[in-house]
Every structure is written in C-alpha cells, then in structure tokens.
C-alpha cells in the first residue's frame, strides 16, 4: 500500500489504518509529503491514537511535521504604489516638464506619432465610418420613402456625420486603438526600466514618451474627424443613389446647402479635446502602470474603458453647451 499524492485523494480506506489504539502504517510501502500530511491530519483527528509503522516512515512524517510551521501573518496585497498621482496632478507634471525640458522635445517624434496614430488609424476609421454611413442611410431611407421625403436623407446624413457621428466614431476608435497602444507602450517601457534609464540620462520621460503623443493627437484628431465625417457621408451617398435614386451631384449640391460651417465647426471644435483627452489617459495609465507586466494589462483595459467613457461624457457636455448657445 502506498500513501502518495496518487492514492490519498479519497482513495485510501482509513479503516485499514485506524486500529483500536493506533494508526498503523506498517503495511505502507511508499509515502510522500502528501501521504505524510494525510497521516498528520489523521493524528490530529484521532488524538488518542499512537502512530506505528516503519522507522523511516515515522521519521519522514516527523520531518514533514516540523516543516509544516508557518507564519500566519499575512502581508497586505502589493498595492500599486506607482499609481499615486491623480489625473490632474499628472497634467500639472506634464506642463511643468514640458516647459522645463522643451529643448528635449524632438520634431521627429511628432512625425512618428502622426504616422502611428494618424495614418495608422485611417484604414479602420475609413471602413467603420463608411459602414456607419451606409447603415444610417439605409435605415433612414426606408422611413423617408414612406413619407416621400427622400431628399432629406442628405440633411440627416450630412448633419449627423459632421456634427455628431464623425467625431464620436473617431473618438471611440482612437480610444480603442491609440489610448491602449500608448498605455501598453509606456507601461512596458516602465516594466523594463526604460523610463528610469531615460531619467538617469537627464531626460524627462514625460517629454520623450508623453508630450509628443498628446500634442500630436490633439492636432491630428480634427483631421481624422473630417476624414471620418466625409467617408460616412460617402457611404450615405451610395445608399442614397442605389436605394433612393438620388444622383451624386444632387446629393453633394444639397449637402453644401444644408451642412453649413456651423455644423462642421461643431464637430471639429470637439476633436482636439477628444484627442488631448485620449492622449492624456493613454499616457497616464502607461506612466503609472507599475513595474509588473500584469499591471500593464490591467491598465490597458482601464485606459480603453476610461477613454471611451470620457469621450462620450465630453461629447454630451459639448452638446449641452451648444444647445445653450444655440448652435
């Protein structure tokens, strides 16, 4: 009979071991740590019984008993001390480091960010904006036909794309794609001590890895919004032509009439705020993600969720402001 991890998992008939005055393991051939723990538990349960068995087995059980002592004082879970700054403090630090180390900001890093965050987002932005344009136009067209108001598809698509949906879709895509990327990139640099290395060299990591990203995103988001809104309108124009028989030239002539500067302005004015916010959130969670890889994973998730939620809140705030001032 063996008392090992393979045999003690409910398979041992303890009645064989428990005698009137003893726990008898004389017939046990092999015993491992798990078996020794099992016997120690039996001894705990049957306090009045004495252990009998082969000398080496009893010695082994005694040794395991000695090794079972432990300190029950639990340490607090490793709190993420790095995330000790509030978001506003972070903005203050960025501004301070930006002014103090302005000479360290490299022009090339802006170009790199335009390529990564701007050009890199164009394809997914185009696809999704186009599809949103198609879906909205198609759903609206069915209703408009029944009222004989086909031409109003232009108003609906044009205004919603330039004023609301273009900025919102762009914001959400950037929050998902760019914010997570910033957090992961800076967070991993933090894990591998690259941020410390840069700081030791006398260069502010906020200036090298943070500011160029935030500034670039602030400036390119309006362009991306414009791009998204136009592609969305294009999707709508295709549905208007195929489903409502509105030719392209008529669609775009009408678009120029109904979508004035105000509508485009409303969409574009939000864009830099979206860009700055996404950049700030992405880099904030990167810088304060801690030194462990799993902290980075967690912060990437936080960064995306907080970015998207924030974009919707900012959009709602702008809607209230525009409603108040009557734009």
């Amino acid at each position: 009979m063996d008392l090992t991890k393979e045999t003690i998992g409910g398979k041992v008939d303890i009645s064989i071991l428990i005698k009137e005055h003893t726990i008898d393991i004389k017939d046990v051939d092999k015993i491992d740590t798990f078996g020794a723990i099992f016997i120690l538990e039996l001894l705990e349960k049957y306090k009045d019984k004495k252990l009998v068995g082969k000398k080496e087995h009893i010695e082994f059980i005694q040794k395991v008993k000695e090794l079972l002592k432990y300190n029950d004082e639990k340490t607090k879970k490793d709190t993420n001390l790095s995330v000790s700054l509030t978001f506003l403090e972070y903005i203050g630090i960025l501004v301070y480091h930006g002014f103090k180390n302005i000479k360290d900001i490299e022009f090339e890093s802006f170009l790199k960010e335009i390529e990564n965050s701007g050009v890199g987002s164009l394809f997914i932005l185009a696809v999704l904006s186009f599809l949103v344009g198609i879906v909205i136009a198609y759903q609206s067209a069915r209703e408009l036909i029944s009222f004989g108001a086909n031409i109003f598809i232009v108003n609906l698509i044009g205004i919603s794309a330039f004023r609301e949906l273009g900025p919102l879709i762009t914001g959400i895509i950037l929050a998902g794609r760019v914010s997570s990327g910033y957090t992961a990139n800076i967070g991993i640099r933090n894990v591998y001590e690259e941020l410390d290395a840069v700081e030791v060299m006398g260069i502010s990591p906020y200036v090298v890895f943070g500011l160029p990203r935030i500034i670039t995103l602030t400036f390119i988001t309006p362009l991306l919004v414009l791009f998204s809104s136009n592609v969305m309108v294009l999707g709508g124009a295709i549905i208007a032509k195929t489903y409502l028989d509105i030719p392209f030239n008529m669609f775009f002539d009408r678009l120029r009439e109904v979508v004035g500067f105000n509508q485009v302005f409303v969409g574009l004015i939000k864009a830099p705020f979206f860009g700055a916010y996404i950049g700030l959130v992405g880099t904030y969670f990167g810088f304060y993600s801690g030194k462990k890889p799993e902290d980075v994973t967690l912060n990437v998730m936080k960064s995306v969720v907080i970015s998207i939620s924030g974009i919707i809140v900012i959009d709602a705030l702008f809607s209230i402001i525009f409603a108040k001032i009557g734009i």
Partner: protein
Amino acid sequence: MIEFRNVYSSYGNYIVHEDISFKIEKSEIVAIVGGSGAGKSTLVKLMLFLLKPKSGEIFFDSQKIDYNDEKKIQRIRDRIGVVFQFNALFNSITSVENVMYPVLKKTSLSKDIAFKNAVVKLNMVGFKNIWAYPGELSGGMKKKVALARALALEPDILILDEPTSGLDPISADEFDSLIKSIRDSLGTTVVMVTHDIASLKIVDRVLILYDKKLIFNGSPSLLKAQNHPWIQSFINGQRGHCYD
C-alpha cells in the same frame, strides 16, 4: 533515468546538436555547460519533449519515447519539475499560492493538503515569507519559491535553467547547497543548465556542449586534464579560478 542515443536536433535547416549520446542516472546531479548558442536550452527542450529530435532516440526509465503518444509524454512530464531562468512565477498570487498551483491543477487533492504541502516545500527551501507576492521578493527569494513550486509534485527529475544567474555569489552558493540537500534528502535527479563554473562543485557529472557536439561527459574533477581549448578557457579563464 534519461538516455540520449545518437540524437541530432535542428530548427529547420539549422542543426543544433550532432550525435549526442549520454545517460543520466537516478539521483545524479548533472550540469549541462556550454557557450552561448551551444544548444543547452535546446537540450533541455529535448529532455522535456517539447522538441522532437531530427534523428536518434531518447529513453526515459529505459523506455523509448514515442512522440505520437501525447498522454504518455505528459505522464513523463508530470514527473519532471522545472525551474525556469526567469522563475516564471505568477505575480498576481502569493508565494504559497504559486506552490499550491500545480497541486491543485494536476491532482484531485484538497486545497488544505495543497496548502500544507506548499508550506512544507517552502520551508524545505528555507523560504518563510509565504504570504509575500513574488513582486515583493529579491532574486534569490524568487528562485527559492520557483524551486518550491518545481518540487510541489515531488518530481523524480528537477531541471534547472541557469539557476544561479542574476544571484549574488552568496545567494548562488546558498542555492547550490539547497539543490544538493534536496538531492540528498529526496533522491531527486537534478539536471542544471549553467554558465556558473562555481556551481560545478555540487555536481556529479558535467556535460559540455561545443560546436553542436558533446565534447565532455564526466566528473568535474577530470575537467582540468582536458585539452580541448574551450574547456581550457572555461576553467582557466578569469571566472574559472574560483574552481581551483
């Protein structure tokens, strides 16, 4: 316990090992030594059956490995404990939970027994702060927890990949002594990949890989008598003097 017979291994067209033959006996401590890129880690992968040799045969307990029999291979792997170079501890759980993990995953034993076993294994390696998270531990402490986790299921073979890398000399010495005491008390066969010449004092046998081939297989005490230039550089170099 493990035997390689005329093993050739490769990654695609790149040959890593040529005609490697050796045998590791039960309760031996064997060091695998070689320069960077000599194929030490690949040899470990072959021992863990994560890589199939291009030709040749590998035996475990005198039974030839059949790479088509996944279940049997897994049963053999269950008898092997591994301490990875960078420990591979789960940072989100405590040290004791790290050691409990393989027991809970691989057996039907209760959480209580898994916990007690973890405490025994952690005490065995001289680690007291069982509730600490790996992120709070020094390199040497992490190694101890990783060793306790490798020992959790009482493996027949312990494979250690660069066990003393990143440790200070005192911690490295302590770790070496620990490995020896584990072998002495549990009879575990230990295979360690190492660059650390000082660790050779605890081993029974050294396998040296050079230029795809096994150029030495014997007791460390015989190393000095070897004429091979790489072995001479290894033991007579600046870092080799500690072996005098």
